[in-house]
């Protein structure tokens, strides 16, 4: 199998600062490598020693976080920029869907722009003439094709750009995150077009954040992180590795935001005017007399590890460490879960659940264990509180803790009831991949 795209130990270094590129005019003229005398502190490596091969006729997905070097890789393949090191080889005519309608001139009509854009992308006038109707049809712009492009909506603009680029009939198609250009219907048309490309044994290099797209379309995938290739090969495996890393990152982020929220809340220990503050009044903070103090709150996943990212449907526990300055027999533990909109998804306490307090003294621990976290994907905030039965707060932590729920299913709502579908024999579904 021949390679349509081949990158060998490719690195790309950008200058960190804009502005003047050269020390002197002479160095500008005589030095081929403009980065020759730049100190490392002035440069930014966008790609470091990346190698990959895309076999002819296959679809290759590149994913990674923002700033991971995906688009740089695509630009190198397209030949728009040159690598600082290593080599890039491409066999066949390329069309790059990097920025749609990049060459459109706002003042002239869609029709004229189609011709000029087509010529820019390497078609001849005759070829465009032959495909013109198809392009306009695909862009769904028949009624507007003679209007100046400046009157187009951004969706129309993108659709026209996409329609021209896709009709260049390349051997290698480079796609950068452009499927978000239209409504559902148009996205489907684009995907159908990609499928058609695949059938015709064309090579597609796809840069996207949509993991679903990579999983569905790609034969192979590459995960870039901070300019390095982290994993490549079978899409499902690469996606799993990527997701694990993303969760780690999110967990760290949530840990720091939680720590910060707690820190900010510390000085606000004076009591609010109404100590029995409304449970549904969603302001962050901490108050209470601290006769019984919450010293630490952590979330624990099904393996017993502290975490901030949980999977829907798996067990999860909120672990609260408490210190009672004096022994007491009047205490209630409570927790509340709120989604990002501030809606209380669930709230309970030991009093509501008819547990009669007997005694607490010294250091203690309370665990609120959820057997199955039946929440939809999203970010949730947590209230944790210890108070008297009459509501007098010992230590009230309002929305100070955050965790994230991940789900393979992107269902919506507040709560996911345990459910399954069943159908009479007349209804069948394809078995899932």
């Amino acid at each position, binding site marked *: 199998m021949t390679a349509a795209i081949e990158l060998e130990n490719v690195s790309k270094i*950008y*200058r960190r600062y804009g502005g*003047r*590129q*050269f020390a002197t*005019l002479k160095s*500008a*003229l005589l030095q*081929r490598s*403009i980065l020759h005398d730049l100190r490392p502190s002035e440069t930014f490596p966008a790609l470091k020693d990346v190698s990959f091969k895309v076999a002819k006729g296959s679809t290759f997905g590149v994913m990674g976080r923002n700033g991971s070097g995906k688009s740089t890789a695509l*630009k190198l393949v*397209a*030949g*728009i*920029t*040159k690598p600082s090191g290593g080599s890039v080889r491409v066999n066949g005519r*390329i069309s*790059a869907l*990097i*920025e749609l309608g*990049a*060459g459109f*001139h706002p*003042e*002239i009509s869609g029709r*004229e722009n189609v*011709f*000029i854009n087509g*010529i*820019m*992308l390497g078609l*001849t*006038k005759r070829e465009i003439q032959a495909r013109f109707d198809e392009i306009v049809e695909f862009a769904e712009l028949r009624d507007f094709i003679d209007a*100046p492009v400046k009157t187009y909506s951004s969706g129309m603009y993108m659709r026209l750009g996409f329609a021209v680029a896709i009709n260049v009939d390349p051997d290698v198609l480079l796609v950068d995150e452009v499927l978000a250009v239209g409504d559902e219907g148009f996205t489907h048309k684009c995907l159908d077009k990609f499928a058609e490309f695949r059938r015709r044994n064309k090579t597609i290099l796809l840069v996207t954040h949509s993991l679903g797209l990579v999983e569905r379309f790609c034969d192979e995938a590459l995960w870039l992180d901070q300019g390095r290739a982290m994993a490549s090969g079978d899409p499902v495996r690469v996606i799993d590795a990527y997701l694990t890393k993303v969760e780690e990152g999110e967990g760290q982020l949530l840990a720091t935001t939680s720590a910060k929220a707690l820190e900010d809340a510390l000085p606000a220990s004076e009591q609010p005017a109404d100590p029995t503050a409304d449970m549904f009044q969603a302001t962050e903070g901490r108050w209470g007399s601290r006769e019984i103090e919450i010293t630490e709150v952590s979330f624990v996943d099904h393996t017993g590890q502290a975490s901030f990212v949980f999977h829907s449907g798996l067990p999860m526990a909120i672990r609260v460490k408490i210190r009672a300055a004096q022994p007491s027999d009047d205490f209630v533990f409570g927790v509340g879960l709120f989604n990002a909109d501030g809606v209380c998804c669930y709230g309970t306490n030991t009093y509501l659940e008819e547990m009669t307090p007997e005694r607490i003294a010294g250091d203690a621990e309370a665990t609120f264990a959820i057997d199955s976290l039946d929440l939809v994907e999203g970010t949730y905030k947590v209230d944790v509180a210890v108070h008297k039965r009459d509501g007098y707060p010992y230590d009230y932590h309002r929305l100070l803790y955050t965790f994230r729920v991940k789900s393979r299913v992107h269902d919506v709502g507040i709560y996911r009831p345990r459910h399954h579908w069943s159908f009479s024999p007349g209804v069948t579904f394809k078995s899932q991949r």
Partner: protein
Amino acid sequence: MFANLANLVRYRGLIQSLVARDLKARYRGSVLGFVWSFINPLLLLTIYSFVFSVVLPDLHSKETEPYALFMFCGILPWTWFSSSLTEAAGSLISGGNLIKKVLFPAEVLPIVSVLANMVHFILGLPILAVFLIYYRRPPDLDGLFWFPVTMLVQLTFTSALALIVSALAVHFRDIRDILSNLLTLWFFSTPIIYWIKQAPGLGKQVLDFNPMTHVVVSYQEILFFDGPVGHWKWLLSVGALSVLLFLAGYWLFDRLRDSFAEAV
């Protein structure tokens, strides 16, 4: 470099359509549209005629009567030259989207600036013809043979400078500001509003160093003055120089090409 230069020929379809786009887009939305191509040089001419025929009538010599026609022979090509350079200086920066997002031969952009202004120059020629008929000064046919040659020399010279200016302006944005002042100086160092023979010894030597002098003087000899075109040796020398300058400009452009996508 020469392979790239050969590519320039391959891009003629692209250049052609971009020039057409430029011309179409320029006057879109204005009431008079293309008529502005005629009106602009006429207005400029009116201004200079007012200054030099009404306010300072004694400054020009007898030989340059009718003075309006004399100036028009110089102003028209000068406008082509100066507008081309001004537009070329900004062409890569304003076309940044193309250079950054599409695999696009950057040298097309300054060349398009020059060619679009050449079309404006050509559109101004009918007005010139009307003037020539009005003043009953038909140019002789032998002289007219030199007209396309002069245009070709000017095209080469302007393109060479356009390539250099556009490539450098990407890295040194100051060039765009320097250029407008430099062009004013250049305008007065070129015998457009005065006759070259009016310049004293030293002035004449300075003028001789200016390639645009010979281009403009050639136009004047072809269109304005009677008798054979005596300036052709100068013109051809400038032509040869322009070809060298074009190659040098292209070399420079080619050198800096890889940096454009990052610097614009």
